[in-house]
């Protein structure tokens, strides 16, 4: 610790706390100097600092809700985001900002003009580009300590097992129930916890599905309803709703990664931005 403190002395910032105590944070220049000195990556430097209670400046505002051990745990965590559109685009950005260290970002689609109303990564510049690729670039740009890998593929029973196996959390940001059922099956088989989120109009639903928990079949029946029956066909996916649902998904994913209690098995979080209302419903 004295060696680390001496090394980082020019970079340390003292942050007073209301009780008169203080904690120290270190900015990117200090982390880069430490990484170069140790011959390791930025993530390693962040972990070494957190281990000594020194907060990387970029995560300083997470402190309080998170402790240094929590932040280190997130840096050492892996997540997969299935779908990088309305829900998935913001989910990727939030997970990168949160500090999840290893992200797999999956989508077979390219951005198109009609995505601009709600998909955070759709901009005039990214139209026509693969969503997963744009998401990986954005995550790495936001947080260079985050290892973000893109898979520009449509998911199915053949490629899903390999994508979800070993992931500490999988976030369902897909746009149709057939693919969502396939994802749930693959996650159950791989033992990976799944955070489901879906929306139509001003309403959204979020559920945490651990292997063995009630899931989409308890919600929508044994076979996935066809896409044409989804309420979103009639009501669309207007601007505010995907952002709100993605934020709820990321907070449940964060709690799963940190081992904190969140939505319980069979609980369905129903968000109605129109009323507005937020309620927890119970399956079974």
């Amino acid at each position, binding site marked *: 610790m004295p060696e680390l403190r001496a090394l980082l002395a020019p970079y340390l910032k003292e942050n007073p706390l209301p009780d008169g105590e203080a904690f120290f944070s270190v900015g990117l220049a200090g982390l880069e100097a430490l990484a170069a000195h140790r011959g390791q990556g930025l993530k390693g430097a962040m972990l070494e600092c957190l281990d000594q209670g020194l907060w990387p400046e970029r995560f300083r505002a997470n402190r309080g809700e998170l402790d240094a051990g929590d932040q280190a745990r997130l840096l050492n965590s892996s997540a997969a985001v299935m*779908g990088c*559109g*309305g*829900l*998935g685009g913001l989910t990727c950005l939030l997970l990168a900002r949160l500090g999840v260290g290893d992200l797999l970002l999956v989508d077979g689609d390219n951005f198109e003009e009609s995505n601009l109303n709600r998909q955070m990564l759709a901009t005039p510049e990214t139209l026509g580009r693969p969503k997963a690729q744009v998401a990986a670039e954005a995550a790495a740009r936001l947080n260079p300590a985050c290892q973000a890998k893109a898979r520009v593929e449509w998911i199915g029973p053949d490629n899903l097992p390999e994508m979800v196996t070993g992931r500490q959390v999988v976030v369902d*940001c*897909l*746009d*149709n*129930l057939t693919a*969502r059922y396939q994802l749930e099956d693959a996650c159950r088989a791989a033992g990976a916890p799944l955070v489901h*989120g*879906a*929306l*139509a*109009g001003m*309403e*959204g*639903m979020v559920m945490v599905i651990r292997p063995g928990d009630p899931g989409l079949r*308890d*919600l*929508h*029946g044994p076979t*996935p*309803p066809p*896409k044409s*029956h*989804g*309420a*979103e*066909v*009639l*009501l*669309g*996916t207007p601007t505010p709703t*995907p952002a709100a649902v993605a934020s709820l998904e990321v907070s449940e994913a964060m709690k799963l990664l940190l081992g904190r209690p969140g939505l319980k098995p069979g609980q369905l979080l*129903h968000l*109605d931005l*129109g*009323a507005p209302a937020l*309620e*927890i*419903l*119970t*399956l*079974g």
Partner: protein
Amino acid sequence: MPLLVKLSTSLRKQVTGYDPHAGLELEFAPGESAEGLIRRLGLDPERIKIIMVNGRSAAPEQELADGDRVGLFPPVGGG
């Protein structure tokens, strides 16, 4: 006490005059099932995937009780 029915998403457009803030109060009909209520509202039971009675999922054949709060949801899969 009447039944309080809350409709979700696209179902709100299928019942004339539905108020999403207040929900819909309907007279309790002894012996009526959740599916019976759905038909009374003029909705297609095939298109309703989730039935919640007092916050808990219920089968279409579940008999309703006086004062029940019933939530009806179509499939929601958008992202």
